[in-house]
């Protein structure tokens, strides 16, 4: 048998698992006895109550039918799309963005794919939140960026542990990533806290990459504050998409926005690097880009607030039900995004080794899918999504409660 010189990219071998990858493993464990309840993925289209505003589909369909947009799109995006996104984001920013600050991407996934290598100079390191979103770790590994994790503090509403951030940074640290509102924690950072993060970044001389894929998905008392508000303190790169707020993850439309009133990204060559890399990356379809101005301008507040109400109701229901399960601790009532972190009190459980074991057995015994926290950086925690309708959440939590009771340590069972 001949030997072919194909060995493949070793970087992928050693990379972290991906959310979708673990999802596949769990899917294989699942028993088909009951109807599957998925509290594991944050695909809002899983919730039949969430409907995309028909304006969006109509706008794209019109653009497609016009036949004017079958051509290749320009490298950084159609000018009208870039302008519309700049205007949309500027509504909440003191320093207005221009079209040149916007780069259109194939979903926020591609925005991450582009922005990390841009910072990857030899020996550089990047600060990522723990728990976080594993695509960052994987992508960093692939481009040789060393990863250092700062903690989010469960007992302080998942705020950034500023001391750990400062301790980790050195002269090779290029940037920090913040996911705001937070996936997987489900919290919305306050204005004061974000300002403090910006000031810390400035002190450390690093940029802030603010992953705002869940922008405006804030249904508690803290309003959503874009990190770009503090861009005169520290330069900010904002990542966003239409996936969550517009319930259109399958459309693959996102952006990178450089919020940088002092022109630091130009001076340091970061902007040139982004533009260089975009020469080889692909794009969202031209006709979709053409529809973006209409989608961003016309969708109304009623649509947004209706979806927020649905999310709030689901999150509250989830939180209340968690209170009934002693072996699971939810330290922070979710007030944003679409998932929440819950700690497993292993001392109250028997016969389960860790979070992965917990989730595999849960899939087998209850046909319930929840993501083990190790995937997002916190072993023996669980990430539970609430982007579903109330009835599915109730059903899911009932099964979870039954499972936990069944596996409770004997002494607990007797007293229950």
């Amino acid at each position, binding site marked *: 048998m001949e*030997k*072919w*010189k*194909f*060995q*493949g*990219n070793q*970087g*992928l*071998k050693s*990379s972290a698992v*991906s959310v*979708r*990858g673990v999802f596949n493993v769990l899917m294989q464990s699942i028993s088909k006895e009951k109807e599957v309840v998925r509290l594991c993925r944050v*695909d809002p*289209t899983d919730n039949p109550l969430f*409907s*995309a505003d028909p304006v969006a*589909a*109509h706008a*794209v*369909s019109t653009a*497609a*039918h016009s*036949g004017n947009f*079958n*051509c*290749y*799109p*320009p*490298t950084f995006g159609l000018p009208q799309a870039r302008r519309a996104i700049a205007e949309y984001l500027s509504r909440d920013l003191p320093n207005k963005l221009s079209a040149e600050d916007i780069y259109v991407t*194939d*979903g926020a*996934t*591609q925005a991450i*794919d582009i922005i990390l290598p841009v910072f*990857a*100079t*030899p020996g550089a390191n990047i600060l990522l939140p723990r728990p976080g979103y594993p695509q960052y770790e994987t992508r960093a590994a*692939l*481009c*040789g960026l060393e990863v250092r994790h700062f903690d989010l503090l469960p007992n302080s509403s998942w705020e950034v542990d500023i001391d750990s951030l400062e301790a980790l940074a050195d002269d090779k640290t290029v940037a920090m990533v913040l996911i705001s509102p937070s996936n997987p924690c489900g919290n919305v950072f306050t204005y004061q806290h974000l300002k403090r993060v910006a000031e810390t970044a400035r002190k450390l001389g690093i940029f802030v990459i603010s992953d705002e894929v869940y922008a405006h998905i804030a249904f508690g008392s803290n309003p959503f504050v874009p990190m770009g508000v503090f861009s005169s303190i520290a330069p900010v790169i904002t990542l966003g998409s239409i996936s969550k707020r517009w319930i259109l*993850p*399958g*459309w*693959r*439309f996102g952006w990178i926005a450089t919020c940088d009133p002092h022109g630091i990204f130009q001076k340091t*060559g970061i902007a040139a*690097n982004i*533009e260089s*890399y975009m*020469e*080889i*990356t*692909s*794009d*969202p*379809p031209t*006709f*979709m880009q053409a529809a973006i101005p209409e989608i961003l301008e016309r969708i109304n507040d009623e649509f947004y607030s209706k979806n927020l109400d649905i999310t709030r109701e689901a999150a509250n229901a989830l939180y209340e039900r968690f209170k009934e399960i002693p072996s699971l601790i939810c330290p922070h009532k979710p007030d944003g995004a679409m998932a929440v972190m819950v700690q497993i009190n292993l001392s109250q459980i028997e016969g389960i080794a860790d979070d992965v074991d917990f989730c595999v057995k849960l899939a087998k015994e209850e046909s319930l899918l929840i993501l083990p926290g190790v995937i997002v950086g916190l072993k023996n925690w669980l990430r539970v999504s609430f982007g579903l309708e109330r009835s599915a959440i109730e059903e899911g939590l009932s099964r979870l409660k039954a499972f936990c009771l069944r596996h409770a340590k004997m002494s607990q069972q007797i007293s229950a």
Partner: protein
Amino acid sequence: MENGGNGNGVAAVNYESKATSTITIKGILSLLMQSIDDEKNDAENNKRVISLGMGDPTLYSCFHTTNVSEEAVADTLLSHKFHGYAPTAGLPQTRQEIAEYLSRDLPYQLSSDDVFITCGCTQAIDVSVAMLARPGANILLPRPGFPIYELCAAFRQVEVRHYDLLPEKGWEVDLDAIEALADQNTVALVIINPGNPCGNVYTYDHLEKIAQTAKRIGTIVIADEVYGHLAFGTNPFVPMGVFGFTVPVITLGSLSKRWIVPGWRLGWFVTTDPSATFKKPKVVERIKKYFDLLGGPATFIQAAVPHIINKTEESFFKKTIDNLRLTSDICCKEIEEIPCIFCPHKPEGSMAMMVKLNISLLEDISNDIDFCFKLAKEESVIILPGTAVGLKDWLRITFAADPSALVEGLKRIKAFCQRHARKCLKQY
């Protein structure tokens, strides 16, 4: 050139040198457009711009996709059933459809597991280079070629080695050069067939020889078939996957050219490899892991693919081929009348051709780049300098245009050449 990476050899790239040293086609074309705009602002020269520079036929009305595809996409979009994430490798029905579509021309059956859906062929290129990148690797690329390969290789720290395509032999691959260039670190041989920028369509025999050479040097073949089936000359299109038993082949393709929808960004990365070299669990795992990181094309566009592939009428395909044959004929005829431009091989496929510029016959033109910039300024015609695709003092002309625009454009090129002809030759 670049600073090195860390011990694992993963890419750490110096972007400044990349920005200046690697020319992109879009980059040069936009500079050429700009020089026309600048000129228009102060001169009375207000000719309409004729672009024969980019491989995007949608600029011209005679090249338009079929209603079938537009309706298919509108249907899936308005069904509201495809707003959610697709699996990272692509929707199962899309993968299955493309497997069947490609299998029609192969001596074996592809399964949907062989097919991965990408955001255009551009992403398929990036994936194949990224998959193969490892410390010290090199990749064999054609010259002239398609500069996205060079760019991807540079970003992934894969060394590029160019083998020549031979104009005097119908742009066939220089097989001796390939054997000379390859070594134990060669990870792939890339061929583009039908050819961009040369317009060649390789014969079965030549592809067989390429396969055998690849086997001899122990390297896989990446077959860029983005212009698949766009063959209008005597040689029929033969997919490289036909030789999949001889050598493992990765086939890249998309809807962009055959269906004239480059803006839809729907492509594929396919392991056409009946000997199952790519089916080893470790390899499959790696490919899947990489795709887990990527965004992929819009779900509703993927969902429209089965309908598009199944229901597109033969007459649409035939019309495209006839148009390409017509326009390439026009192009060659007009070029015959321009002394300083020589076409070594009449194109038989794709949408572009390479022609040689005889600088010595021109008065004040130093090279192909100079030629193209002056042409743009004086005549508002855009063609691509061959330097952008690896051949200095050649030109790439895209003939996928309206016949009238093509004729007008070439007449202006002829006028330009006459105006700049070396004086002592003007007597002829």
